[in-house]
């Protein structure tokens, strides 16, 4: 499914701030794998996910997803195959737009945006059902601005958006790190549910050893100073 080969990333090369984030990292995920990667601050966890997502160009190595080399593909082009949830709950949604508009944006991930109306009536009914399953009362607030929601609600919504159109790979970037323990547990449970229901291949990074072991079917590896220790 996902092959990462000899991935290398150096930030600010040639300056005093030069920082090698990843050196020759390789990782393989089979279809349906839930791999967690643990590491401390600055270990290169986010760099790993951002390299896969195409946020910046990498300095060496190859990323292959489902047989397709996506190493040089721009971020918005590879988004078609990826579902992403960020560490910052504010990052995954558009605050000034309402819940259904956010879902509608995610529902069309990877598609050409046309001059058709942004949200159709059929979709709206589907969103209501899906939000109802979240059990956060959001199904009654479809036209509320997302900025009014709490961090936990926004993260749950982002998760729903990331999986609304089943991605080939789900990328979770410490997506519960900014939440309080109770909310974090809820969001993790939701993650597990959505991943199982949709049979998603998932790559999650976290600094929480407990979560990593509990959730990862293949508790992947630990990143330490730009190297993957075990795999």
């Amino acid at each position, binding site marked *: 499914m996902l092959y990462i080969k000899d991935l290398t990333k150096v930030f600010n090369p040639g300056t005093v701030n030069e920082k090698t984030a990843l050196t020759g990292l390789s990782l393989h995920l089979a279809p349906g794998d839930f791999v967690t990667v643990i590491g401390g601050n600055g270990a290169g966890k986010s760099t790993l996910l951002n390299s896969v997502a195409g946020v910046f160009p990498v300095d060496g190595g190859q990323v292959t997803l489902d047989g397709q080399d996506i190493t040089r593909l721009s971020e918005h082009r590879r988004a*078609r195959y990826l579902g992403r949830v960020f560490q910052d709950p504010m990052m995954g949604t558009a605050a000034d737009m309402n819940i259904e508009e956010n879902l509608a*944006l995610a529902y069309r991930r990877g598609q050409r945006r046309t001059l058709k109306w942004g949200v159709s009536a059929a979709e709206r009914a589907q969103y209501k059902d899906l939000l109802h399953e979240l059990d956060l009362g959001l199904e009654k607030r479809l036209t509320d601005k997302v900025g009014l929601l709490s961090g936990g609600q926004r993260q749950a919504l982002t998760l729903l958006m990331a999986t609304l159109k089943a991605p080939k790979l789900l990328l979770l970037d410490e997506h519960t790190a900014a939440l309080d323990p109770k909310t974090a547990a809820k969001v993790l449970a939701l993650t597990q549910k959505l991943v199982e229901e949709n049979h998603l291949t998932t790559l999650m990074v976290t600094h929480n050893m407990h979560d990593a072991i509990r959730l990862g079917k293949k508790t992947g590896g630990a990143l330490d100073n730009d190297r993957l220790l075990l795999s």
Partner: protein
Amino acid sequence: MTQVLLGAVSLGILWSIMTIGVYITYRILDIADLSVEGTLPLGAAVACFMITRDINPYLASFCALLAGCLAGLCTGLLHTKLKIPALLSGILTMIALYSINLRVMGAPNLSILRMETVFRPLARAGMSNSAAIITVGGVCALLLIGILYWFFGTELGSAIRATGNNQRMVRAQGINTDTMKILGLVISNGLVGLSGALIAQSQSFADVQMGTGSIVIGLASLIIGEVLFGGKSFFRRLVALILGAVVYRLIIALVLELGMNPNDLKLFTAITVALALWLPQGRELLRTFRKLLAKEGN
């Protein structure tokens, strides 16, 4: 007095189209686009040039809109492809347009006095000049509001709105944020170009200087509209822009009637906008100050 008021309203309506353009960049895309200072006279220059060549004024106004779109495209490309900050991209386009506008007109200004304009047919039918401008400008502004309301509700329009909100999220949904920014700038500057064309036809001349300070006028109208008439729905916000532009012109007419030196107008506008932009923080400051005073009282 009625004449003055009607003049202010008609001018406000023509400038409201420009205000809508400023709204698209400043509020929706979250970009302060200064190219409008060059696009407004560009629209005026293109329209006047074509009218002096006996070309149909409606066609001339449409070409002014297209010229504005091109200017927006230029700013958009500078910003997204050359990675020049948005503010600077706008300034570069604005400066470049100064030369282009002189080229188009062949002189610092171009008169179309007694030539055909989009307002003439109604005036010939017996309407007063102001009434004709209000009618044509009003229909045009309302039509544009309708189109924009529809457009920003579509998939494409939603993607542009989201781009102004959270670019990272938009890219994660597979949308090219660069394209969305360019598109927004093109639409915005197209509207400003059209506005310039209509303003020039209403005053019977185009002037290379007529864009100076227009961004501040646009912002002032926008803020007045939001504060006085703003609401939750997008449609209401668009209508508020027209009303804001009209109220701005009424205020200007009023202070001029009261005897303000016309040379001080831009200073007056700048101070008004500065105060309006400070308003949200100012309210906060006032609240803290009141609390402190209350404590002292105890």
